[in-house]
């Protein structure tokens, strides 16, 4: 079992905090091959995926070469800016961005940092729900099993309540045992109404009824729960299309938001999830849950960069107020532990 011992030994290192690693990385003398190898490792172990990790490292390398950067503080802020750009959906331009970076002095980079920070508020789609011009705003919540859809709905309602918006839940997960009951408890906690049918009934009719109820009562937002489904199940993906059609029939223009919930613990498969869900219905945003663990959720960056779906909210725990609007800057800072 000597091989095992080797693994365990190696893994102990992984469990050391990232911030430590990063500090060590940036404290080291040279910007040599080893530096970039280690950076690559940090990115990959954050679930960024090999491809994107290599891309980022290559961009950094060429920046260092072109700029003859020797200072590590400078490369750090460049890396930060690069990741924020990708997360802000400026991924295509990121290459140009790298080009722009050429010829810029550190102060300029610093200044632009401040600018991206200011730009975050105006950035489209991030951290907000696009409300319908006329209530109700219909929000469809989707995802694979166990990512935290029901919990996110409860927390989202609470967040909206803080903004003075009343919600009604549609208990659209009629498949899993006791899913309706779970949502009901969240409705009580968050002070929302709920429309639920029997287990095994048609989720479309639940959603239709909830929207109709919201229209007649003048409720602001309809949050539709759906059963967890693996993206590879064709029938269940078809069912989603139907739910979207039903929502549109109950209220023209609905659903106004279709949010895909992704578990931050998920690895590369989150990309397949986002791809296949988007093939069935138009995903307008992501909710990244379970970021309170040790997983970095780097795959969200990959999904954001490759599929151009904005990340709207992040889940940081099981409490009512543990759902927060997403900010690219904060996310990258957490990723890099700065």
């Amino acid at each position, binding site marked *: *079992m000597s*091989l*095992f011992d*080797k*693994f*365990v030994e*190696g*893994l102990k*290192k*992984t*469990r050391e905090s990232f911030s430590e690693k990063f500090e060590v990385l940036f404290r080291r003398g040279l910007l040599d091959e080893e530096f970039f190898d280690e950076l690559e*490792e940090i990115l*990959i*172990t*954050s*679930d960024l*995926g*090999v*491809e994107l990790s290599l891309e980022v490292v290559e961009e950094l390398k060429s920046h260092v070469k072109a700029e003859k950067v020797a200072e590590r503080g400078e490369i750090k802020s460049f890396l930060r800016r690069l990741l924020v750009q990708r997360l802000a959906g400026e991924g295509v331009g990121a290459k140009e961005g790298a080009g722009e970076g050429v010829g810029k002095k550190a102060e300029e980079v610093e200044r632009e940092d401040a600018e991206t920070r200011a730009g975050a508020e105006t950035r489209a789609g991030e951290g907000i729900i696009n409300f319908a011009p006329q209530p109700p705003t219909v929000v469809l919540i989707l995802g*694979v*099993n*166990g*990512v*935290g859809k029901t919990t996110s709905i409860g927390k989202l309602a609470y967040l909206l309540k803080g903004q003075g918006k009343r919600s009604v839940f549609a208990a659209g997960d009629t*498949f*899993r*045992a*006791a*899913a309706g*009951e*779970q949502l*009901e*408890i*969240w409705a009580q906690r968050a002070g929302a109404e709920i429309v639920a049918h029997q*287990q095994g009934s048609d989720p479309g009719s639940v959603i239709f009824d909830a929207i109709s109820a919201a229209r007649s009562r003048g409720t602001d937002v309809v949050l539709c729960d759906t059963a967890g489904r*693996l*993206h*590879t*199940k*064709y*029938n269940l993906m078809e069912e989603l299309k139907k739910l979207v059609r039903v929502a549109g029939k109950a209220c023209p223009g609905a659903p106004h938001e279709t949010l895909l919930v992704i*578990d931050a*613990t*998920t*690895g*590369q*498969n*989150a990309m*397949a999830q986002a*791809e*296949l869900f988007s*093939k069935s219905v138009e995903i307008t945003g992501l909710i990244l849950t*379970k970021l*309170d*663990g*040790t*997983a*970095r959720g780097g*795959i969200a960056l990959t999904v954001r960069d490759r599929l151009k779906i904005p990340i709207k909210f992040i889940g940081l725990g*099981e409490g009512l107020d543990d759902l927060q609007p997403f900010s690219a800057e904060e996310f990258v800072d957490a990723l890099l532990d700065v």
Partner: protein
Amino acid sequence: MLFPNLANKIQDTFQRLRGKGKLTERDLDEALREVRLALLEADVNFKVVKGFLSSVKERSLGHEVLKSITPGQQIVKIVHEEMTKLMGGGVSRLEIKETPACIMLVGLQGSGKTTTAAKLARHLSKQHRPLLVAADIYRPAAVKQLQVLGESLSLPVFSMGEANPVDIARASREKARKEGRDLILLDTAGRLHIDEAMMQELQDIKEAVKPAEILLVVDAMTGQDAVNIAGSFHERLGITGVILTKVDGDTRGGAALSVKAVTGCPIKFVGLGEKTEAFEPFHPDRFASRILGMGDVISLVEKAQATLDTEKAREMEKKIFSKTFSLEDFKEQLQQVRSMGPLDELLDMIPGAGKMNKAMKNIKVDEKELSRIEAIINSMTPGERQNPEIIGNSRKRRIAAGSGTRVQDVNQLLKQFTQMRKMMKQFGDMGKGRRGGKKFPF
């Protein structure tokens, strides 16, 4: 998927190097780079990959690979073997000795503990009398979920509302003893491995019930963090095994390797869907193929064997080679194939189909096509099914209307069927012909 076929990729690498004559250690490194990428893409932990590859390299250098005519295949073979070995070699069983024995299920939120508890109870109810215990008092309606599942399996579920989980666990032993249950399945609340208070609770439960098995439930889609999660749970509780869930998706499931590497505990079962019967023992060799993106042929064959009735198959074989093969038989055959599960699930198991199943559109056509064919046959009279020659234009119109298809569709089916029968007859005659000394037609 980036790496539809690892073996081909590595073979290509060597092909490029072939011109140079002798393969060197550097060439080997280049090939192992492909393996590294494949493993990382499959979510095997970075550190685990590193350690794993160094052992693969060591073995490869032992003349096995460099002198081989097909070094690519050799490497894949070694990788596959080492990975199988690392994941435990063979199927690993539960260690249940005392009565009542307790099995504790632990894991992160949403990994599938409650569903798994029900599946495990069903799986074990052949040899045991399990008692499901709802010790998740935190998640809303978790107790209710287990109760509903227990009811559907006709198995008792013990709960004490929102009492302390440690007390619930303790009381469950008493309950099991009284009711003559020899196995306690403890469903605990999902928790983060870094939540001190919640981890302490698990330790307290462990102290109270001294479980025979503590099984960590892990989502097969877990990424790089799998090592931290499994490591923490193992450190605190000393887990005895792992159950991998949501394996029915398209994830390559590299987390399995990471978890095994960091805990040394065997993976005992896999969950393959939401139904309580979608549960199987873990087979390291098959899973190694999956992580490498090589498909799972053995499972496919097993599935076919389990679903297809051998007796019926033999009868069908006879019919196929005789002239009595009718549309009725054809329909039965179709239904047998379909009873093996959705086509996309079957496709998943075929090597190289990983890429195909992404193109879901194609599969959709297939599934629909099969339904249409069945509908058409269903709209025929028994006489027509036995004797399709009698189907004229008027009958075709009736069949099309009855099955909601067009006359063209009916025509197409009849044409295909006639062709098929012709071919089958040829095969049949061939068999006879051989005996009669005639030559093969091809």
